[in-house]
């Protein structure tokens, strides 16, 4: 039974990763590699908390976080799509800007807590029927609404990418933007829109941390989760459904260090803390060794699109 409790907690720990990974999958499918996920999560966390604390409305909190993320996404899009800047460095600058901005704004939010009515919205609820499934039911479906929307987001993303016209167009842009342009798809517009939405989703991952998981504002609240999310995108082969599994796996790794302490193992807690990063590296190595691994990457990932060079 302890393992079910652990899995339940792993799902909660994995939710920020899920949002961030899904958002980054969307961005990367458009052909742009956004390394600013960590910054986006921090921005989402701080603006979500700020809005929630001042207005006491969970809805506004979530919307503000998403809007802030979308704005930063647009900044990234402007730099990489219109100004053809180097995507790796631009992503890093978004991370730095996001870290600085969130630290700046967050200073006034230290020590604040949310009201009862606020946290009540994010209480654990039981999804009728589904939560009655033996074993897995409570783990997955006896969760708060944020976690549940996480699955919804990922599943909808998968459907969008694979079953809709827009998703197909997006995938074409990511594989070969020149071909997409030639068949009349507006490459820049698609990139802008999807990078912005991707940014919003990453920000929601951060908002979950400050609004539900902790819930408070701390300076290092994301603790590198944004980077793990970028790795998770590769780990899940740019497939949102696999991302769900990956996010929860890493959520579990995140909390295992603390929990294993009570068993008095001869291994130091700090060494176990290394686990998520070691596993990420192993996943990266495995993916690069196996032929099919990075073969699922969008072909034109991180290459700026020059319309002039079409001929």
């Amino acid at each position: 039974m302890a393992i079910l409790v652990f899995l339940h907690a792993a799902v909660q720990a994995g939710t920020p990763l899920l949002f961030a990974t899904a958002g980054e999958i969307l961005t990367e499918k458009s052909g742009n590699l956004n390394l600013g996920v960590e910054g986006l999560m921090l921005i989402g966390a701080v603006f979500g908390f700020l809005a929630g604390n001042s207005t006491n409305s969970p809805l506004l909190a979530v919307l503000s976080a998403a809007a802030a993320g979308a704005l930063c996404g647009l900044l990234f899009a402007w730099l990489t799509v219109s100004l053809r800047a180097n995507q790796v460095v631009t992503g890093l600058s978004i991370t730095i800007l996001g870290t600085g901005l969130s630290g700046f704004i967050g200073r006034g939010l230290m020590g604040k807590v949310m009201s009862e009515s606020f946290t009540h919205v994010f209480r654990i609820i039981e999804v009728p029927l589904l939560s009655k499934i033996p074993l897995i039911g409570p783990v997955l479906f006896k969760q708060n609404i944020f976690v549940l929307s996480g699955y919804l987001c990922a599943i909808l993303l998968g459907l969008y990418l694979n079953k809709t016209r827009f998703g197909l167009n997006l995938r074409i842009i990511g594989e070969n933007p020149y071909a997409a342009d030639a068949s009349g798809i507006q490459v820049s517009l698609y990139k802008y829109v999807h990078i912005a939405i991707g940014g919003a989703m990453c920000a929601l991952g951060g908002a979950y941390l400050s609004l539900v998981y902790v819930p408070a504002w701390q300076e290092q609240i994301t603790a590198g989760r944004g980077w793990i999310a970028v790795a998770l995108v590769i780990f899940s082969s740019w497939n949102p459904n696999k991302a769900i599994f990956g996010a929860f796996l890493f959520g579990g790794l995140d909390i295992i260090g603390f929990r294993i302490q009570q068993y008095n193992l001869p291994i130091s807690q700090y060494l176990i803390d290394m686990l998520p990063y070691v596993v990420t590296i192993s996943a990266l190595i495995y993916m690069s060794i196996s032929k099919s691994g990075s073969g699922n990457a969008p072909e034109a990932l991180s290459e700026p699109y020059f319309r002039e060079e079409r001929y």
Partner: protein
Amino acid sequence: MMRVSKRSTIKGKYILLIRVTAVLLALISLGVFISFMGHDPIKVYKAMIEGCFGSAYRFKETIKTAIPLTITALGIMLAFKMKFWNIGAEGQILMGAFAGSFVALNFTNLPKPIMLTLMLIAGIIGGGIWALIPTWFKVKYGTNETLFTLMMNYIALKWIIYLQYGPWKDPNALGFPKIPNFVDAALLPKFLGVHLGWVIAIVLVVGIYFLINYTKLGFEISVIGNSENTARYAGMNVKGIILKTLFIGGGLCGMSGIIQASAVSGNLTYEVSAGVGYTAIIIAWLSGMRAPIIPLTAFLFAILTQGASYIQTAFQIPQSAAEILQGMILIFTLASEFFISYKVNFDFSNIGKTRKQLKEEM
């Protein structure tokens, strides 16, 4: 109406003008931001300058901040020149500090010159090996180096924390988790008021400049950075060159780490890197990957950091403002790259004409 075309040539002076404009715009934007907060931006900037140059002590502190930034940025530049995105400088600094500290803590009876030399060498090896691990996988299997080196940062950090709270914990520290202080022989001496690191930094700037521009390895690095295929057709041992270069680059970061531990803190803590590894990436990028410019940019960033820390008490503006400014400078510079590579032509002669008119003209 607006036509974008790629530039074929551009004068060097023009590039400098664009870059300086970018930095100025960033400073002005932050100034506007500061005035929204209710402070006079001129006063704030003046205070920042005073915080760095106002007294001999402050000036030395500014130099001390610039030293690790310079050395680390040099190391990062070597990797970036080959389009190898080494984000792992932070971890390489930590592991270099770890290796050097190992020497410092275990061979306490060595005379000072030998001790320091061994520590520096250990630092280079520590950082170099830490950089080699992800490089080897990238070279052999094409593993994504950006994420690998980044994960190595976190592992290095946890390792040092483990040491600080565990096997290397000082029994004389009354339960407070810290590693014992280094013996006097392990502390880097001062030269002209600031620790020797500044001499080492200048020597390295000259050395790396020489390496890039006058040696075979430097040439090979430039070719690989331009086009890996060209390098291969020319018969270069691309894999070997990448491994060699990353070892040197990581070694430089490692050296920076042990210099910080030895000269600034006198022991090893997990805060020895203090984000230098990430800031140095921006510095390397902003310097256009040119060795002589790196110390200048590093000094500029040292001014920002020092200044920000000074105005923190005076104006209640938090330290993270320096980070925001750094991020903005980077963003403005990235945006300005566009104007360096492309020309924008405005042609308004076609406004107001109907489709028929345009067709007739054709």
